[in-house]
């Protein structure tokens, strides 16, 4: 790490071997070790803070000031003529000399500076670091130099005549001030000066020499951004007339203005800085507002769709046709439907039910589908009653306990057949899991209460699942095929559940499956002598043909309507 020398005048960093400041050309008085500021001699935090100050000092001050503006509205600004404050006292919150005249935000800065090492206290550290570098036998004179350094912070405005500066600068300072002050300055100093541009240079020049009071004034003037302060009232009155050139800058810094042929300075209020992203967002917002304000295209009210009347007409036609075919049409089957593999599998199982077999009937369907289930269940239950099967019933639909009674009552076997009600399970999968675990679990928790279900000791010879939905049947199939893999499972389901359950038949998890009127007709012809399907057969065929016609008409109408809309479009 190389050592550096901080200029007592401008605070610029200079190489170790420099005798004059590279920025302000002030003599670098190297006095003992105190002026040599080694990085090692400084705390690392101090360096970080100093660097941070260089990068962010103006923004930090603005942020604090704006924060204060939201809190304090009636605080007065600093007035001129206040007592000069020592730099260390500058941020002393206990200083009572300012009274109410010092803004609250400045008080807060001071408080933070006294309590914390970071935030605005960085300024103090900067000042302290500079002061420490000047400690020594010339401490008093260096203190004055420090005051001049503070003034330098306000510094010579670029292009400002040297005489202007000299008028407000103490003699000692002017003696040390080289005449050819160049604008070459460190970045952090430029930033401070850029922020300083919010006050008029004339004001600054008038107050140059007030030492740290100037810093207070400068900070106080930050309280009202954009407030234009002029050199004096007379100049301000003549400003509009005599201004020949005003170079505006978005940063709002002090600009050179020719007043009455003499160069002067004024503060140009900062322009609004708009980033490209903000501009894009603003344009989008504007276009949105434009869109909302523009009159919307008037849409033609569609004439009332004739579908409502057509729907009613077709429903009435369907009901009348079904009624006619039910009560006046031919009864009986033209021919027995073809036997599907799943129906064949079910028939093979049903025809070979051993006498006195133990069967489990699972009820998982709603009353709305009881007519369809009854068609296929009645021949099977009659067969079971003939074989004196021992039947256990379990339900996973709320209507199950009622429906199984209705079903057995319909065939007159409610009293004749031995039926054990295993109860109702709100969730089918849980019921199946509980039932399966009752047979397959090899472990039992000690002292666990016995289930109130009266399960057969030898298990079931077969399971019949009555279901109206795919989901209900699947829950039982999944659990029972895992927990009771040796037990034969057959399905009696509705037509709407059948397509999605076919894979379980293809995989062999289900032995057989029957559904709908066709299967009912086959079961009737093979297992019993009932004629429920025959009474409905013709009506069912008429209903199918009619609905197919309706679908064809609907498709044609939809195509026509689509074409019409495209034509309109």
């Amino acid at each position, binding site marked *: 790490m190389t050592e550096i020398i901080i200029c007592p005048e401008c605070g610029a960093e200079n190489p170790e071997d420099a005798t004059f400041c590279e920025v302000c050309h002030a003599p670098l008085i190297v006095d003992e070790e105190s002026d040599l500021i080694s990085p090692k001699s400084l705390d690392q935090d101090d360096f970080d803070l100093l660097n941070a100050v260089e990068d962010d000092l103006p923004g930090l001050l603005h942020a604090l000031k704006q924060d204060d503006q939201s809190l304090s509205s009636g605080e007065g600004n600093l007035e001129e003529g206040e007592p000069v404050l020592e730099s260390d006292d500058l941020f002393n919150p206990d200083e009572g000399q300012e009274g109410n005249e010092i803004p609250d935000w400045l008080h807060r800065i001071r408080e933070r500076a006294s309590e914390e090492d970071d935030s605005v206290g960085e300024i103090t550290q900067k000042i302290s670091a500079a002061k420490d570098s000047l400690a020594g036998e010339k401490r008093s004179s260096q203190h004055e130099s420090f005051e001049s350094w503070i003034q330098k912070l306000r510094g010579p405005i670029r292009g400002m005549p040297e005489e202007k500066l000299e008028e407000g600068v103490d003699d000692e300072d002017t003696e040390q001030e080289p005449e050819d002050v160049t604008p070459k300055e460190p970045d952090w100093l430029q930033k401070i000066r850029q922020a300083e541009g919010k006050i008029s240079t004339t004001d600054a020049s008038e107050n140059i020499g007030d030492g740290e009071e100037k810093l207070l004034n400068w900070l106080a003037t930050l309280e009202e951004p954009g407030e234009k302060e002029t050199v004096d009232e007379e100049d301000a009155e003549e400003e509009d007339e005599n201004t020949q050139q005003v170079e505006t800058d978005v940063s709002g810094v002090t600009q050179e203005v020719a007043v009455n042929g003499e160069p002067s300075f004024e503060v140009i209020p900062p322009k609004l800085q708009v980033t490209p992203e903000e501009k894009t967002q603003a344009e989008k917002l504007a276009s949105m507002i434009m869109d909302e304000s523009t009159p919307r295209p008037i849409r033609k009210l569609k004439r009332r769709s004739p579908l*409502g009347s057509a*729907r*009613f007409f077709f*429903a*009435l036609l*369907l*009901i009348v046709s*079904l*009624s006619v075919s*039910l*009560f006046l049409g031919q009864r009986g089957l033209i021919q027995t439907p073809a036997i599907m593999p799943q129906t064949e599998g079910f028939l093979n199982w049903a025809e070979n039910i051993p006498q006195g077999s133990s069967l489990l009937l699972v009820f998982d369907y709603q009353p*709305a*589908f009881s*007519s*369809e289930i009854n*068609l296929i269940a009645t021949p099977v239950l009659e067969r079971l009653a003939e074989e004196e099967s021992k039947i256990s019933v379990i339900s996973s639909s*709320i209507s199950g*306990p009622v429906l199984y009674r209705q079903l057995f009552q319909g065939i007159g076997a409610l009293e004749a057949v031995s039926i054990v009600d295993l*109860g*109702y399970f*709100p*969730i089918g*999968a*849980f019921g199946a*899991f509980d039932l399966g675990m009752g047979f397959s679990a090899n472990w039992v928790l000690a*002292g*666990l*209460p016995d289930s*109130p279900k009266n399960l057969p000791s030898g298990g079931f010879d077969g399971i019949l699942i009555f279901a*109206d939905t795919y989901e209900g049947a*699947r*829950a039982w*199939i*999944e*659990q029972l*095929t*895992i927990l009771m893999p040796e037990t034969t499972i057959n399905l009696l389901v*509705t*037509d*709407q*559940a*059948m*397509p*999605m359950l076919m*894979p*379980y038949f*293809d*995989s*062999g*998890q289900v032995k057989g499956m029957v*559904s*709908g*009127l066709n299967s009912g007709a086959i079961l009737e012809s093979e297992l019993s002598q009932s004629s429920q399907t025959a*009474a*409905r057969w013709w*009506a*069912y065929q008429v*209903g*199918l043909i009619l*609905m197919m016609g309706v679908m064809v008409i609907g498709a044609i109408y939809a195509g026509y309507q689509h074409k019409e809309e495209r034509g309109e479009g």
Partner: protein
Amino acid sequence: MTFQYEIFWIVVSFLLTVMVLSYLLGDNVFFRIAAHLFIGVTSGYVVLLIINEIILPYMLNPLITGTWIDRLWLGIPILLILLLIISQIKKFTWIGSLPLAYLAGLAAAVAVGGAVFGTLIPQSRTIIDSFDPAIVNVTSGQGWVNILDAVVMLIGVIGTLSFFHFGRKRNPETDADLSKRPMIFEGLSKIGQVFIGITLGAVFAGIFSSTLLALIDRILIIGQFITNLIGSV
């Protein structure tokens, strides 16, 4: 007395059926009365069902007639029930997370176990077994049909899975259109669409068949009621 009782319920069922069918004319007060009636009856029935089928046999009876060990075991579900009830108080909502976590974990375990071992593995094995030469040639002269059946099934499975593949391209720099999936998935998903369409068509046909049978049953009941009414007169 029995005859009057049956007549009463036949009349009620006839009226309710007509009220529901009146929806063909649009939403009306009769349809609403029937709907509200069904909802109310169902609610009351469910309450009684739960009490009779679950609370009494599984909780109250063991508490009254069971041994001390039975009662201790029942302490677990009773505690969970109490926690659920307490969680209805705003201040103690967090207490309900324990029984709900227990229920969710149990349901997930049962459902996932069933789905994997009861559906996924058996169905996958079926697809694989369909290419087993022993199964394909089980019927002499039908071998090519079995092979065709297996191939169609495999294409359907892959196509359907591809249709539900929502992955994106791994190299967006080289592919211009990011909205499209890889070409192979696009092609297979088109095939899968055909299979899905056929499946949904079969489901729709099944739904229509079931509802048609339900409608026929209702018309039959109404017709029989009117016939009996005219005959009795």
